[in-house]
C-alpha cells in the first residue's frame, strides 16, 4: 500500500438536510437567508472516508495528507472547520460570492488539483441543494483521470484502488489506478462526530484562502435559472363510507377505473 498519499476532499456548504426547503418570494431560488446550513452529507461521507484511509495508513507507519477544499462565500469556512474538526489536516477556501455552477466548481477544483497534486480526489456524488451529480464526473473529464463514482466500499492497494459501486439491481466492483476521482454514495460509511479536542485542534489547523482570479478560472454561469417552484401541495386523504362510494370516487374523481 502506498505509504504516503495526499487526498483532496471537496466540501460544499448547503442548506441543512433536515430543514424544510422553501422557495423565495420571487420564485427564483430556494430561500437561504436565516436557514441552517451544514456540510453536504455526501461530502461529510467523503471527509470521513479520507480520514479512515489516513487512519489505516497510520497503522502501517504510512501517512495521508487530507486536504479539504470548499468553493463559495466566506461562510464556507465554517464547513471547512467542521471537516478539520473531524480530522482533516488542512483546508483551502476558494472564495467567491458569485453563483458557482458544477462546471465552474470542476474548473476551480482542477486548478487546485494542479497546485496540490493529490493522489485521490473525493467528492460527494451530488450536493443535496442542486442535485446536479456532475462535478466529480466533469473534474475527471477536465483532468483526464479515471473515475469511480457512487462508491459504497473502497479498498486501497499499491497505486490503485478497488471500488464497489451501487448500481441498479446489484453492485459493481471496479479497479482503477491512481490518481483518480472518487465520488461517495450514502452507504460508504457513517461520518463521525466532531470531538471537542479535535474542534480545539481544528482552530489551529491551516486554512489557506484563494480567489477565483488567482486560479485564473472563468466561473461565469452557463445555465440560467428561469423558475423555481414548490411541488404541488398534497391533498389530504378522504374517508369513504362504503365500497360503492370508493368505486364511485375511483371512477369519477380519480378517474383510474
Amino acid at each position, binding site marked *: 500500500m502506498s505509504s504516503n498519499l495526499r487526498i483532496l476532499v471537496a466540501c460544499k456548504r448547503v442548506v441543512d*438536510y*433536515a*430543514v424544510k426547503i422553501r422557495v423565495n418570494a420571487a420564485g427564483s431560488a430556494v430561500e437561504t437567508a436565516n436557514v441552517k446550513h*451544514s456540510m453536504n452529507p455526501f461530502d461529510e461521507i467523503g471527509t470521513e472516508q479520507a480520514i479512515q484511509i489516513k487512519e489505516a495508513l497510520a497503522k502501517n507507519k504510512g501517512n495521508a495528507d487530507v486536504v479539504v477544499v470548499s468553493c463559495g462565500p466566506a461562510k464556507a469556512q465554517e464547513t471547512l472547520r467542521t471537516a478539520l474538526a473531524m480530522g482533516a489536516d488542512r483546508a483551502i477556501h476558494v472564495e467567491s460570492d458569485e453563483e458557482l455552477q458544477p462546471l465552474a466548481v470542476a474548473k476551480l477544483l482542477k486548478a487546485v488539483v494542479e497546485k496540490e497534486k493529490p493522489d485521490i480526489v473525493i467528492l460527494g456524488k451530488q450536493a443535496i441543494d442542486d442535485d446536479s451529480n456532475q462535478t466529480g464526473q466533469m473534474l475527471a473529464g477536465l483532468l483526464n483521470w479515471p473515475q469511480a463514482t457512487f462508491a459504497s466500499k473502497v479498498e486501497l492497494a499499491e497505486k490503485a484502488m478497488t471500488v464497489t459501486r451501487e448500481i441498479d439491481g446489484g453492485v459493481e466492483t471496479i479497479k482503477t489506478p491512481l490518481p483518480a476521482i472518487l465520488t461517495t454514495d450514502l452507504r460508504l460509511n457513517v461520518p463521525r*462526530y466532531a470531538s*471537542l479536542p479535535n*474542534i480545539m485542534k481544528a482552530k489551529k489547523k491551516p486554512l489557506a484562502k484563494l480567489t477565483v482570479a488567482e486560479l485564473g478560472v472563468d466561473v461565469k454561469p452557463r445555465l440560467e435559472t428561469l423558475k423555481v417552484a414548490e411541488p404541488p401541495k398534497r391533498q389530504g386523504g378522504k374517508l369513504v363510507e362504503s365500497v360503492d362510494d370508493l368505486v364511485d370516487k375511483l371512477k369519477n374523481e380519480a378517474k383510474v377505473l
Partner: protein
Amino acid sequence: MPLPARAAISLSANLRVSGTRSLWQQLPARTSSSTLARIALASTYTRASFSTFPKVAYASVAASNKKPFTADKYPYLKRDESFKKVILRFELVSTYFQSVNESYSLYCDISQLTEKDVEYFKSILAPSALSQDESDLEAFNNDWMHKYRGQSKLVLKPSSTEQVSKILKYCNDNKLAVVPQGGNTGLVGGGVPVFDEIIISTANMTSIRSFDTVSGALVCDAGCILEVLDNYLAERGYIMPLDLGAKGSCHIGGNVATNAGGLRLLRYGSLHGTVLGLEVVLPDGTILDNLSTLRKDNTGYDLKQLFIGSEGTLGIVTGVSIMTPKRSKAVNVALLGVSSFENVQAAYKRSRDELSEILSAFEFFDKGSIDLVKKHLVAGKNDPLESPHPFYILIETSGSNKEHDDEKLNNYLEGLLTDEIVQDGVVAQDTTQYKNLWAIREGIPEACSKVGSVYKYDLSIPVPVFYQMVEDMRNRLDKEGVLGEDKSVDSVIGFGHIGDGNLHLNIPANSYSEEVINIIEPYVYEWTAKHAGSISSEHGLGLFKSPHLHYSKSPSMIQMMRRIKNMLDPNGIMNPYKYLPEK
C-alpha cells in the same frame, strides 16, 4: 331468542373450555338457578352469535396468566360502593377450574344492567365517539408501561366542551365515576381506571382555536397532540414551551392536568407560568371559561393554577391558552463525557455563568443509561464518544445569533476540557447529528422498558446528593441479592434534568415483583424526605404515589387539598382512588 339481551353472556376469547358440560359441572351449588340457566343458554351459542348480543352484557372469563387488574394487584384499593355501577360488576361464582394447563376464574353478572346510561351518552355523542368493545377498551384500560390495568367497560370521546359538560353533569347526577384520559402516556397510573370508571378521552378534541402571531398566545383544544402543536408553531417561528419524550402521543390537556415538566423547563419555566388560561368543565357540568390570552391579569384568585397538576381530580381541562416563545434560530447541542458527578455539577455551575441566557437544556445520564440505549435502540448504534465515561452531559443552547452562540459555547467547552472537568465531547455539526444526540437522551426510558418492567422514580433532590441516591439504591439492591445478571433486577440507572434538580431513578427488571418493590419502597421515599426532596418531581401522584404523599406534604396541607377536592367534586366522581391518600 328467549334470553333477555341484558342477561346474555359473552365468553371472552381467552376461554378454552372443553364444552358446555364441563362448565356446568364446575359451577358451585350455590349458584342460583336463573344464573345457571343464562350460562347454560349462552354457552350453547357459537361465538358468532354472541356478537349479536348487545356488548354491554357479558360474563368474563379471565385467564389467570393474563396481566392482573390494578385492583387485584393493590388489594388496599376498594371500589367505592356509593358509585353506581355503569355496567355490570362481576361477581365471582366459581373460583377456579382447570383446563389443560391454565386455570381460569369465572365471573358472572348478578346485578342490573343500566343500558339507560349508555343510551343517554349515545344521544349526545356521535356513534363513533363511544365504545364498549373489549378490544377497543384494552388500549384505554392499560397504561403504556403495562403496569396498570383497569376494568372500564365504556369509553367516551367527546368532541366539544358542551359534550364534556353534558357527560359530566349526567355522571355527577347519577354518581358514575369517571377517568379523564389524554394520550395515556402517564407514568403513575393516573390516566387509567382502577375499577369500572367511565373513561372520558380527549382524543376527539383536536382543534387549534387561535394563534396570535404577535404575542405568541396559542389557544387550542385539550386533545391536541404536543408534537402537532409544536410543528404548527414551528411553521410560524414559535415553539411550545414544553417538550418531552412522549410528545408524539401526549395531549396538551393531559400535560396541563399533570403539570408535565420535560426538557425545556430549564429555559421556559413550568406550566404554572406559561399557561395563560384554561377552560375547565367541573363535575356538575359548569364550564369554567378562563381562556385568557393576557400575560398579566391580577383580578381575583388565580383559579387556573388549581387545575394545573390536579390530574383530573377536580374537573376536565377542555381548552388551553398557552404562551409560546419564539423559536430560536441557532441551536447547538453537545454531548460530553465526564469522569465524576462532582464534575457534572462543576460543568453545570459554569454553564450558568458562561452560557447563561442561551442555555436551554442541561441533561445528565450515567453509563448504565447509555449502555441500555446502545443495547436496545437504533439511536444507540453509533456511540458519539470514542470510549465510555461514567457520566454524560447533554447540553443545548438556543439563541438568535449563531456566531454569538458558537463562540460562547466553544469558549465554555474549551474551558471545561482545559480544566479537565470533562474528558471528551462532541458537538453536533448538523441537524441530523443534533437529533441523534437527543435521541440517545430521549431514548433512555424506552430502552429501559425493553428490559421488561421498570420501577420508575421521579424525584426532586438537592443537586449535591443527586447521584448518591442512585448509588445507595444500587448498593441496597445488590446487598439484597436481587441485582445483576440472571437476577430479577437488571440495573439501577440515573438520568434527568440537573438544571431542575430532577432525578429519574429507573430500575429496569425482568418483571415487577413484590419482593423488589419492598426493598425499594418506602426506602426511596424516606431517603428523599430525609434530604428535603420531593417524591414526585414531574410525573405526578396518580395511583402510584398517592399513598406516599405524606413524605412530601404536611398533614395540614393534605387536609386543605381534601377540602378543595370535596368542594369542587362533592360526589368524588373525578378520577377516584388516586391523587390524595386514603383517609
